[in-house]
């Protein structure tokens, strides 16, 4: 499961709501566990930076964008379903990319 590729993750949230906080905590926890030492996490509050939401064409919040490594991936929600997050980050085997199993 470990890979040394550098991960760049952008998390878009709307204000300091419980849901935003939950998403930030969930992401941090997952990253610490799965990507320790080789990830970069940026939290963007679109209330403060609406242009950023426009630029990335954000519809739902929270939205997590995996900018690197390619390919781009998006995960929406407060990230409580850890399996889905790992799947979205290509950290779990999925029918779409079985070669990443090992």
């Amino acid at each position, binding site marked *: 499961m470990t890979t040394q590729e550098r991960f760049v993750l952008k998390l878009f949230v709307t204000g300091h709501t419980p849901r935003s906080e939950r998403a930030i905590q969930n992401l941090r926890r997952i990253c610490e566990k799965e990507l320790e030492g080789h990830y970069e996490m940026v939290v963007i509050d679109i209330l403060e930076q609406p242009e950023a*939401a*426009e630029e990335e064409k*954000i519809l739902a919040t929270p939205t997590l964008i995996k900018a690197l490594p390619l390919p781009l*991936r998006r*995960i*929406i929600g407060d*990230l409580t379903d850890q399996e889905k997050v790992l799947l*979205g980050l290509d950290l779990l085997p999925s029918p*779409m990319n079985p070669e990443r199993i090992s």
Partner: protein
Amino acid sequence: MNENTDALLKLPTGIEGFDHLTMGGLPKGRTCLISGSSGSGKTILGMEFLYRGMIRYGRKGVFVSMEERTSDIMRNVRRMGWDLQALVKSGHLRLLDAGPEPIPIEESGAYDLSGLLVRIEHAVEQTGAELLVLDSIGSLFDQFTNAAVVRREIFRIIDALRNMGITAMLTAERLDEYGRISRHGVEEFVSDTVIILRNVLKEEKCRRTVQVLKMRGDTHYKGEYPFTINAPIGISILPLSARELKQSSSTARISFGNQVLDQMAGGGLFRDSIFLVSGPTGGGKTLLATTFAAEGCRRGEKVLLLAYEESHAQLLRNAQSWGLDFQKWEEDGLLRVICQYPESMGLEDHLLLIQREIESFRPRRLIMDSVSAMERVGHVRFFREFVIGLTSFAKQEEVCSLFTSTTPKLSGGDSITEAHISTITDAILLLRYVEINGILRRGVAVIKMRGSQHDKQIREFTIDDQGLHIGKPFTNVQNIILGIPSATLPSEVEQLGAMFEE
């Protein structure tokens, strides 16, 4: 959304026919739902709502596209002659790309659509927009699996728009032309105003219609109204029967171009009247129409001649044979001849074209030869609407109009055209073949002349190289109009002698 009892202010849209249909435009500061099947014209209507608002009223607007890329929309409407790029540059228009991303999206846990709402609010704030279009909300249901969340968020967006005082259009898909209002039942949120667009294929012809299903707290025209989409006008709704019948009923008379005919009609035609000439093929209808046109030109009145059965060259040659120089009148700008195959376009498009011609050329006389040729183009109901739309427009513009109609039988008989338009026309002139003792002759009679006395007799009508001549009334011959004429006198000699009054 049910606290409203006060009459809503309406915001005129500037879309042709739309403000008439809605009796003033869209309720100001509210969101209305535009529901329609795929290809029914929702995006164009939404875009035109913004475009006219900007061009005509200097308003600002935001277009949120959830299906097409904004670059595609810009390109698509360029064929309408709308330069969105310039409006974006001048700060009037903001296009938001809110379509699905081409990359896979995973859902993990709870979410809402605050991203979309924040972007909308931001765009409205930056532009100072009064108008907004969301096209289309159905796409949200395809992008996000939790329909309950999507519904709640749409409601929240509508609420936010209302707080900002935005007049908005929300588009939604429907699957059937006559079924549920929209696919996801979104009309429940936007209960103020619901407008349905349809694109129905009937008898191999596509027909677009618009219907204002409801408009809370206010009146509007009910039923389906046909519309067309054409460059550069955009959407054009034909109000048809919604047009008020406020005939000015001019008492001024104009000449037919034939003294006897004028007398038969009690002194000429009323200036704003609609005149129907009915007759069998070869009965002299085109000659009558030509005479009517020539009289107008001779008097310096502009004449619009719409020909659906003959070519331009044929018409000119015919007129020439009666000593009338149509070509010169055309060059002088008095006569405008338009020849078209009835089948070249739909009835709505024909009507639109005629209306444009009347508006730009401003004729005093209009000739349509023949109106019955249009029967072939569409369903009988649409034909009737076409005729109503045309006649009411001609009346409104005070254009004296002559329509010809071909009867299917050589003698007697009636046609669909007559059944549908005889009640609308102000005067009817019948041309009929009369067979007397083995010889075909032509008879002419005025059978209706609204607001005036007219000659009740049937007169003989002849054609030579000078044009038409109207002679004495037939006497002692019956059933000319109704069918097979028959003589009433016993002796042939007497009959021949008495055929014409001295």
